[in-house]
């Protein structure tokens, strides 16, 4: 949230700080009363911390071929017979320590998901604001584009785009830049979600009289959009942002599963699951199931937090 209070230190001095206010207000109250939200946030923080600290926590570096011994492949986790000491979650098909690989993979998945959403939000909010505020022909062209793009679905656009890129550059070059391709395609393909939500909110806010009143005061459109309309459009943006992060992580995993995302040498959770799928029929379930569980838990807590945010902010999500 933009902090407009910074400019008025005198006025704000008499109020408790913004954060304290939020904690004491409805948001804090509903959070303290909601065990699901508390647990979800805790789990999310733990997963994020583990992922960020991967280089410190992981006993092996999965990107370093020298630390991998192919002879160690397909050992089960510690609680299953036939496990290998030192690999408590077992090893994958290439003999990598699954625990280390999952830590690094989670880091990649989270990073791609968050970056993609940042790209989406930047594109979508800008386009949505312009479309909603300017209106007219610009608006109808942009929204028609958004409709068409949306009806083709992100995943479809991403699959086609990545498939073509891979075919064009060859898989080796592709693998090298896969992170950027993924962020770009998931980021760009989802802009209509934000744009439509922001536009609908802007249209609703623009009708409110506080916008007219600042227009009569002579403020320019830039100031009105950024200082007045945008701060009032934040609730729906927050709500869709949580859902979008979850969706972006799922999209990344799906694309990597199809072989259109992260290569096995630099696995995200999706490519780990994909690699394990070939061994599931032979009984090496852990290579697929353990990263799968991590992925589901990660997405689930984000979705649960998203539900809570929606309930507490309760924005009117404008349709259209």
């Amino acid at each position, binding site marked *: 949230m933009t902090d407009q209070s910074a400019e008025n230190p005198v006025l704000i001095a008499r109020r408790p700080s913004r954060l304290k206010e939020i904690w004491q207000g409805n948001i804090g109250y509903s959070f303290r009363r909601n065990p699901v939200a508390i647990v979800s946030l805790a789990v999310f923080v733990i997963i994020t911390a583990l992922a960020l600290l991967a280089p410190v926590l992981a006993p092996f570096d999965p990107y370093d071929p020298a630390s991998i011994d192919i002879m160690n492949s397909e050992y089960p986790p510690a609680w299953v017979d036939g496990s290998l000491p030192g690999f408590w979650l077992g090893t994958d098909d290439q003999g990598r320590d699954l625990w280390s690989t999952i830590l690094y993979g989670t880091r990649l998945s989270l990073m791609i998901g968050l970056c993609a959403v940042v790209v989406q939000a930047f594109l979508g909010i800008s386009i949505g604001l312009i479309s909603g505020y300017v209106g007219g022909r610009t608006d109808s062209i942009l929204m*028609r584009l958004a409709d*068409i793009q*949306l*009806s*083709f*679905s*992100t*995943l*479809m656009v991403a*699959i*086609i785009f990545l*498939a*073509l890129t*891979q*075919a*064009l550059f060859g898989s080796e070059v592709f693998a090298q830049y896969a992170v950027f391709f993924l962020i770009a395609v998931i980021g760009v393909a989802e802009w209509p979600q934000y744009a439509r939500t922001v536009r609908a909110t802007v249209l609703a806010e623009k009708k409110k009289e506080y916008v007219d009143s600042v227009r009569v005061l002579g403020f320019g459109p830039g100031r009105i959009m950024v200082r007045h309309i945008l701060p009032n459009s934040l609730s729906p943006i927050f709500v869709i942002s949580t859902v979008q992060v*979850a969706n972006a992580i*799922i999209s990344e*995993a*799906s694309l990597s*599963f*199809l*072989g259109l995302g992260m290569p096995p040498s630099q696995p995200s959770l*999706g490519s780990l*699951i994909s690699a394990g*799928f070939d061994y*599931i*029929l032979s*009984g090496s*379930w852990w290579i*697929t*199931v353990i990263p*799968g569980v991590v*992925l*589901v838990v990660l*997405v*689930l807590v984000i*979705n*649960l937090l998203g*539900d809570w945010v929606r309930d507490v902010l309760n924005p009117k999500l404008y*349709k259209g």
Partner: protein
Amino acid sequence: MFAYLVKRVFQAIAVMLVISLIGFAIQGNLGDPLRELVGQSVSEEVRQELRDDLGLNDPFLVQYWRFLGNALQGDLGTSYFFKEPAVDVILKKLPATLELVFGATLIIVGLSVPLGVYTAIKPNSWISRAIMAISIIGISIPVFLTAILMIYLFSVELGWAPSFGRGETVHVIGYWDTNFLTVDGWAHIIMPSIALSSIMLPMFIRLIRAEMMEVLQSEYVRFAKAKGIAPWRIYFVHALKNTLLPVITVGGVQIGTMVAYTILTETVFSWPGMGSMFLEAVNRVDTPLIVAYLIVVGFIFVVTNTIVDLIYGLVNPTVKLARLGA
């Protein structure tokens, strides 16, 4: 209504043109048709001659026009790998995918309405809470993972259902073989259908529940209560129709996602449909097939979206008047 119809059809044509343009651009830039035809051992002069013969040196618009003309006659080139017209290859695979989509749609439509309505009417019952809990887990598991876990559980561990292929099918007409006429066919299609619906179903349950709860808060529902109307009639006559109107529009938008999910599901279950064919075509850089897939899928999107929009216009009395009212 007339203007509305014309508008929708124009829009559909415009979208198809854009798709064909993309398809054409791909065809021109991806892979070299000469290499596929003659290999690499031919001299540069011969190549140039061939290029002229094939019209590859014509201006862009001329080539596009030719491409468009051919496409309208159902000619989207010949698959490098299958050595057959690309359209035929796709049409052979189409029924398998459509049956899968049909199965999933049946599950989604059949379950989402009753479950969504139930959870909206009795939001505090434990059944509702369970449904909502399962559905949020449902939307958190990627389709391909659901598919893999189902295979591991029901095929590998329990051995209840086959894990790949279509099984025994019955020939119906043309390229259409169906799964729905044999027990083995049913056994094969059940798991892929469930997997394909595994994100969409919970999503629709949640959507219907949210819309229905909003409608139940409305003044006209309160007025119906004040008139002494029985609850079932309030739920199913007053509220349901108002609930489903926005759901129809969302449904139209989801068709694209559904097709994307078929690629994932077909890959996991080795289902011989268009989706897995497309991935193979990508791996083989079979450009005509890729382009043909793009155009056929695009066509399906556009047609279904247009139909959904028209249905919405017909069902919703407010739209009907706004459009009819000349």
